[in-house]
């Protein structure tokens, strides 16, 4: 076998590793093993690439890889569990930028290679840079560096259409003439378009945006692979592009919305966000820890609804302590997990698993919704949008149509919240003002610790 064939064979093994990795990641039992296989495939691919013919600039290559590792590993290790969504967005963004840079850097090398390569170059450049700036805005929203609510630039729709038109024109020019300035202009338009694409999307939909941009980056990688005629990049990029598109669809389905509605919904619903965001001055009923402790201790059935506030307060262990205590007093306790509670699907499962909450106590939305009518007390820990009845009743609400946990069917609802501030979607929750509702303000962990103490003596 020639060297080229050995390299191809190595790439084939790596590609199979990636397929097995995705397969493994779709089942809880094999997920971790799937991730290891993926990492193994990636390392193999990098090692094989070192044997590429005519490679030079070794000090630069090694230095860059070492520097990238020195940035990536500590960042991935240090990030708190609550901030993982924005970390994934950041990693996705830099991947998109890398794919675009690869295509740009190789552009002139193929100036006589025909329209197919030129098309791959413009695709990777545009999509890679869109993914980069889109991910930056996503990061900003999730990190709450900027507002989490949809941002509507005046005439934003026209700007977006203008950018899209410019994109198409530049694509034609670059393919037709091979002009480098036109490619640079294309890159800039792509960068701006990425910003315009994500700005109008509300914070609560960020998980879906990350998934979509993840799929974009995959396709950009595949296109860069076509530029370099590298089969591994085509396979890996396309796998991620295709599975990412399907995953995006599944996730938006879990929210009962279409991707189009999520990405462009803010353009069609009018002024829904006006006035929201400021704490409301309507009166709510606040309770004392002791009242609630007695209410809980003498219930038959209690359902806990965890949300992002639980993650922020790192209260998963304390909530488990409370649940165990109640169970020891003969109360039936379960957890209602909304598919998009927290900032990403599965966020709550991860947190509660960390606290060793028994799996049988975790109930998915469809399973738990009929049970609320028989529930004495629902304890909502730092969740808001996922229990907002407006999703069911108010057609003008931006979350209208999203499946929610029907906690308003229970006898009592106790909200553990930091303040009256609206949830991530930035909309008021009528349930907070309901007759069955009691508020317990404060840090979720503090309040839960006090509740544990009070239930013990109740």
């Amino acid at each position, binding site marked *: 076998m020639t060297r080229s064939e050995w390299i191809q064979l190595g790439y084939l093994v790596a590609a199979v590793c990636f397929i097995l990795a995705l397969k493994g990641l779709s089942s809880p039992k094999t997920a971790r093993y799937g991730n290891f296989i993926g990492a193994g495939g990636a390392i193999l691919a990098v090692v094989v690439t070192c044997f590429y013919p*005519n490679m030079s600039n070794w000090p630069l290559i090694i230095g860059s890889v070492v520097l990238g590792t020195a940035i990536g590993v500590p960042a991935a290790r240090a990030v708190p569990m609550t901030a993982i969504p924005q970390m994934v967005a950041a990693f996705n963004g830099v991947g998109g930028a890398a794919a675009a840079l690869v295509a740009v850097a190789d552009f002139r090398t193929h100036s006589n290679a025909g329209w197919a390569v030129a098309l791959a170059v413009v695709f990777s450049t545009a999509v890679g840079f869109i993914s980069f700036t889109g991910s930056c805005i996503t990061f900003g929203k999730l990190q709450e560096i900027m507002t989490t609510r949809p941002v509507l630039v005046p005439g934003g729709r026209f700007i977006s259409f203008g950018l899209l038109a410019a994109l198409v024109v530049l694509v034609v020019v670059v393919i037709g003439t091979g002009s480098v300035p036109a490619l640079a202009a294309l890159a800039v338009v792509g960068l701006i378009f990425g910003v315009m694409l994500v700005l109008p999307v509300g914070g609560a939909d960020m998980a879906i945006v990350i998934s979509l941009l993840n799929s974009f980056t995959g396709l950009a990688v595949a296109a860069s692979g*076509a530029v370099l005629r*590298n089969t591994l990049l085509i396979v890996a990029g396309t796998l991620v592009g295709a599975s990412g598109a399907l995953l995006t669809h599944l996730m938006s389905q879990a929210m009962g919305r279409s991707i189009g509605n999520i990405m462009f919904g803010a353009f069609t619903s009018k002024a829904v966000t006006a006035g929201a965001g400021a704490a409301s001055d309507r009166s709510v009923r606040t309770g004392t820890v002791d009242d609630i402790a007695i209410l809980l201790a003498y219930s038959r059935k209690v359902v806990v609804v965890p949300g992002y506030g639980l993650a922020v307060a790192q209260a998963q262990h304390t909530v488990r302590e409370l649940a165990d205590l109640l169970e020891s007093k003969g109360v039936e306790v379960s957890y209602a997990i909304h598919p998009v509670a927290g900032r990403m699907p599965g966020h709550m499962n991860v947190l509660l698993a960390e606290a060793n909450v028994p799996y049988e106590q975790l109930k998915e939305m469809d399973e738990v919704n009929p049970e609320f009518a028989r529930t004495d007390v629902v304890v909502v820990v730092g969740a808001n949008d996922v229990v907002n009845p407006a999703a069911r009743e108010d057609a003008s609400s931006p979350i209208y149509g999203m499946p929610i946990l029907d906690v308003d069917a229970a006898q009592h609802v106790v909200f553990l919240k930091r303040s009256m501030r609206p949830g991530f979607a930035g909309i008021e929750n009528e349930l907070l003002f309901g007759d069955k509702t009691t508020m317990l303000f404060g840090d979720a962990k503090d309040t839960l610790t006090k509740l544990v103490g009070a239930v013990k003596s109740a």
Partner: protein
Amino acid sequence: MTEILSSPTWLWLLTIFILSVFVGFEVISKVSSMLHTPLMSGANAIHGVILVGAMIILGAADNAVQALLGVLATILATVNMVGGFVVTDRMLEMFKGRSKSPAVKEEVQR
């Protein structure tokens, strides 16, 4: 055969692309919502393999501009790939405490 492998035609590349689309759809068609996040993060790490492309560019760079773009791409791609796998592993680590008893495992499998 050697020729196809070392210098694939665009039709050959298109074939690989189309087949990969189907594999990509098929491979995750049955996934529980609990695993959406780790799966997304794992896929994110996999596209970090653009590092291979970045290394090829940098390894073949013969002018300063190409070298600069290559260095940038290599650093960013490494961050994507290495960071992606590490952060996915951290997420999945959280799941392990649960699957202790076989009964629970079956439940999770469902």
